């Protein structure tokens, strides 16, 4: 049968683009209609449309599609395993005693926002490089401290992401592709370094983490020869109602359950071990960084594939939001202004107290959970200000800008749809749909800490710049 005779013999099943009243007229006649949520591609910018068109020549299209298939295959097939904990100076590539890693794309001290400056000065004091935060600020401004993005050292860092030499790191190995990713330990909530707080209670906690918490975890994992399969655990946690960015109740329970037998076998006092368990129990966030390192480990394996338009990093330094794309190898960042985070706030704080979007935690959305997996976490839909249906909508909407579904990690509420995987710069520009990010809100000033949580979106400029660069690059 020809396509035309097929059309004549059946009722039209229409995809309606544009004028919505045509849809209503068709429905009135009993026809099937899908009305697209259409906006002009690239916000109507001719240069972006030209770039999109350029990608559509058959040869380029074939190259890009093949590269993207490879990229998502590497994301999905990556098997990140937690193999241990150690201090940054011992394991993180390029780490020195005077290096401070931070979240997001590169930034200089003078440009850092309040929470990041608070965290940096706190870390300098913690490392014994200055006696107080005032002196630390002078040192930070002196040029003697090397600032560098976590992402450029196989690391990720939550919120300010400030990571210094003696902090303990998760070590996550990609059993499929061999690369390793790192991230530091959760300080739990809420008045903490990563949120910009830096008073003595914060420093004291960091010292305890360096002297007790970290060493116990390190020694515990030395006893675990097989490591902990984080992809499997993440999948379980999502089935238990986490989205593993803003809700980590299930994941933290699973992780501490896996660590406990080994913690018990270490040579520390019962008192110290109890401190560890109490600390983990004090906040659900304990496993938050773990999932970030897991995602980073998988996405690094997909970075640097020629002609790929898949996003491998989304990260914010509190001033700028930066992305990296697989087809633009190395540390090529595309940036735009960091956005506000909209959501409920702790009692006593107002939206104008909020610092802008910050942290490397958007690596979770880059992988496909967090905001992308809102449908797994109906318990926290209040964060997105809505209903369970809205939560489901967030997950299905992300399918419009991703390449495939990750069949290893599924969303029960959506008939076990896999996580939307492989954000494609082309699709973001084509549809105008921005990746949705669940995140915390830090106070805009140094020294205060977390004041709320909510959702945010990247600035479209970052994706526009990436698209234009890719269009130069893909031949």
């Amino acid at each position, binding site marked *: 049968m020809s396509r035309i*005779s097929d059309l004549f013999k059946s009722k039209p099943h229409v995809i309606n683009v544009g*004028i919505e009243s045509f849809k209503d007229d068709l429905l009135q006649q009993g026809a099937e209609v899908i009305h697209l949520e259409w906006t002009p591609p690239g916000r109507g910018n001719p240069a972006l449309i030209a770039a999109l068109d350029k990608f559509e020549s058959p040869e380029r299209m074939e190259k890009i599609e093949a590269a993207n298939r490879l990229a998502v295959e590497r994301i999905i097939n990556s098997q990140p395993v937690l193999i241990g904990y150690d201090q940054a100076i011992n394991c993180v590539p390029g780490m020195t005693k005077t290096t401070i890693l931070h979240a997001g794309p590169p930034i200089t001290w003078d440009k850092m926002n309040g929470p990041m400056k608070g965290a940096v000065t706190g870390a300098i004091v913690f490392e014994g490089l200055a006696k107080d935060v005032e002196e630390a600020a002078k040192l930070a401004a002196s040029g003697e401290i090397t600032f560098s993005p976590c992402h450029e050292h196989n690391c990720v860092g939550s919120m300010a992401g400030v990571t210094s030499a003696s902090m303990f790191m998760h070590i996550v190995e990609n059993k499929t592709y061999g690369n390793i990713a790192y991230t530091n330990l959760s300080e739990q909530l809420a008045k903490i370094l990563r949120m910009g707080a830096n008073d003595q209670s914060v420093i004291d906690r960091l010292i305890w983490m360096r002297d007790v918490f970290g060493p116990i975890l390190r020694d515990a994992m030395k006893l675990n020869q097989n490591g902990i399969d984080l992809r499997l655990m993440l999948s379980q946690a999502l089935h238990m109602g986490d989205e593993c960015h803003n809700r980590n109740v299930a994941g933290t329970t699973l992780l501490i359950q896996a660590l406990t037998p080994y913690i018990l076998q270490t040579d520390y006092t019962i008192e110290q071990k109890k401190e560890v368990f109490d600390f983990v129990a004090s906040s659900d966030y304990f496993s938050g960084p773990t999932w970030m390192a897991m995602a980073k480990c998988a996405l690094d394996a997909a970075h640097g594939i020629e002609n790929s338009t898949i996003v491998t990093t989304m990260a914010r330094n509190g001033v700028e939001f930066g992305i990296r794309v697989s087809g633009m190898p190395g540390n090529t960042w595309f940036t735009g202004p960091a956005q506000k985070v909209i959501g409920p706030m702790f009692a*006593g704080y107002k939206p104008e107290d909020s610092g802008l979007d910050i942290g490397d935690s958007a690596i979770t959305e880059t992988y496909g959970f967090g905001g992308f997996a809102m449908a797994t976490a109906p318990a926290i839909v209040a964060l997105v200000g809505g209903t369970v249906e809205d939560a489901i*909508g967030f997950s299905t909407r992300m399918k419009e800008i991703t390449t495939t579904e990750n069949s290893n990690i599924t969303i029960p509420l959506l008939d076990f749809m896999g996580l939307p995987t492989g954000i494609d710069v082309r699709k973001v520009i084509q549809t105008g749909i921005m990746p949705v990010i669940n995140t915390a809100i830090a106070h805009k000033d140094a020294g205060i800490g977390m004041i709320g949580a909510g959702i945010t979106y990247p600035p479209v400029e970052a994706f526009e710049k990436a698209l234009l660069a890719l269009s130069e690059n893909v031949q």
Partner: protein
Amino acid sequence: MLVQALIKPNTYFDSVSLMSLSTKANQIEEVEQAIIAMGTEMNKEVMKNVGLLTPEVEVAGASDLIIVVKAATDELCETAFGKINDLFTKKNSGKKGTNDIKYSTISSAAGSNPEANLAIIAVNGAYAAREAKKALENDLHVMMFSDNVSIEDEIELKRFAHEKGLFMMGPDCGTAIIGNTALCFANAVRKGTIGIVGASGTGSQEVSVRIHEFGFGISQLIGTGGRDLKEEVGGIMMLDGIQALEDDEETKVIVVISKPPAPSVEEKVLAKMETCKKPVVVWFVGGNEEKITAAGAHFAKMSKEAALKAVLLAGADESKLNKRALNIPLIEEVRTKLTPEQKYVRGLFSGGTLADEAMHAAMEKFDNVYSNIQRNPEYRLKDRYTSQEHTFIDFGDDEYTQGKPHPMIDPSTRLERFVQEAKDPSVGAIVMDFVIGYGAHEDPVGAFLPAIIEAKQQAEQEGRHLEIIGYVLGTELDPQDYQEQIDKLLAAGVTHASSMQNAGLLAREFVVKGE
């Protein structure tokens, strides 16, 4: 300022929900500050810091829910507590069906809905070609309502569609009926055995409703877009459309509607008709009879004639048809009412082909016929806001729509012009179309009625007869009430024409002098 606390013992809410409720509570008008939280030590500490710690709060336990409000008076506190309680009990709006999956691209919609077979593209012309290409790549037929698409894009899309065996209707295609479903601007007509391929939307609508009125029906109505029969495009869609109807078992008779094609295209189209196994009726508005007859096709000079020929070829019994002949006594009557100065016809149309047909009827009798759609530049309107002698305006033309919806949806521009024409003492008759059906205004006659009534009164006061001819394009099956539209015209003293052909002829005949 007063601080009051409400403690709900042993009531648990998760912290995220409470943060959200707190945020909403702080937006309540009466509230200076509010905190809703569980009575944990940490929360109590926060309340102490912001001066909201009351004795009740101090003794609340971690499993007690605390609501603290700071407001100007006791009463305001009470009101605030009431509103906060509502926040807890507020159910979700219970909207149904929002779970429908939303798609943003044709590819994703088509990928998830393999039964989809046609895309309607009605976006800004700058983006329309990209979307159409995507649709064709996804094996969807395309109806492109958008205009302002380059002719190069049109050619590329039509060639691509032709290769894939798909329809590329448009750009600037407003009318089609596929599988008895009206697409964009079309009328509800009976299903039948007559197929139409039209390069002109309102022309196709007109013939389809006439066929319906004659008791017959439409198998398929295929639109090609207005430029299809231009030299550059070469009639790709017209030729494919004729072929499709020839291949279609349901179709017995084919009607082809267009402005006269470019000579090279006309040759191709006529060659196609020569080999076509089914009878073809051709209405090329203002076209040449000889060539068409020579190609073995049936020539129609006007719209009703095209419909009549088609139904006769489809098996109608001519003796039983009501052909709605022109009302000759009426013509005589109106002529006597008009003064010698009332010489001119003013045609104000929402449909381009309807304007064209009326204009051609006038051109048979008069030389001084002006229009924005005149082929001969000598007779183009010099100023689009000022009529010259006999004037016919297609208000759907770009120069009149500029930034506004089509006159079939937005009557405002045409309405203003009507008021202007009605005041002109040299005007003998104003002729207008009122198109109903899918896509069209819900009450096009109603939109004009007050202006018509006022104009008639005004003319009467000035001692002249204002002759208005109205034609309602539609059927009794259309979503609007067809008969009601006609009744409204009649009640306002408008002469109702039963077809566009008759409307054009009546307008012309009314102002003929000295016959």
